[in-house]
């Protein structure tokens, strides 16, 4: 489990502005100015968030043009989704199996009886 990567991704996602930026980028690349538009926030304010997202590998920024559009990179997101899902499924699937196993144990008890 790449837990270090996951920790970085989780921290990057733990902010509503950054989630909104990612949701916007899911529709296609955008410049810093375009990303800043929906928020009451300065360009540098948004840039700070973009740096966090970039460090977490959630976005990439092209070096070429002056516009430097940002693009979404989906793999870390997928890892987070998979891990969160895994946490819940671990318990849910285990308990599901326990239901069946307890039935087996009850049947055994009825058949063989118990000491106490």
């Amino acid at each position, binding site marked *: 489990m790449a*837990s270090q990567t996951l920790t970085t991704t989780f921290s990057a996602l733990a902010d509503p502005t950054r*989630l909104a930026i990612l*949701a916007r980028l*899911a529709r296609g690349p955008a410049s810093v100015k375009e990303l800043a538009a929906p928020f009451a926030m300065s360009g540098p304010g948004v840039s700070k968030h973009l740096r966090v997202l970039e460090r977490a590998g959630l976005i990439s920024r092209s070096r070429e043009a002056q516009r430097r559009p940002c693009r*979404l990179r*989906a793999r870390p997101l997928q890892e987070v989704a998979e891990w969160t899902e895994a946490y819940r499924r671990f318990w849910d699937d285990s*308990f599901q199996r326990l*239901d069946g196993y*307890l039935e087996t144990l009850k049947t055994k008890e009825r058949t063989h009886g118990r000491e106490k």
Partner: protein
Amino acid sequence: MAEKNRVGVTTFSTPSDREIVAVRVVNAPRQLVWEAWTKSEHLQRWLLGPEGWTMPVCEMDLRPEGVWHYSFRHRDGTEMEMRGVFREIEPPARLVRTESWGGDWPETLNTLLLTEEGGMTTMTVTVLYPSKGARDKALGVGMREGWSHSYDRLDRALAQTGVPVG
């Protein structure tokens, strides 16, 4: 709280900043459920998560300060470890122990509470994290409390645009 819980459904909640609670009702008396949780030969049969996992190692020194250690193995070769120390043992009602998954995941204090009513047992598993931050990481930035909505939206947006992975 209890009246909401039905057999076959796991209810997750976050009653405080540092906890995750999973509640599940099973159709069996408490003594039997206690044994299913505290005897290796039983636990190895069900505490396995999704399909494909086995638990080749299941050691429990069931006494205060006794060590426990589970090692899981997936058929694809992936391995996962859990270990910790028992703190309080009150059969067949309450089991408190520390739990650690290794790596940089924090050690948690886990309490299993078993209550019986009419032959049915309610299992309440409380996982206490050292901080809210650590808890929220485990939740995936909060599967409750509105975060999930943003995240669902993001998921949908990703699905719609078919963003290439990588």
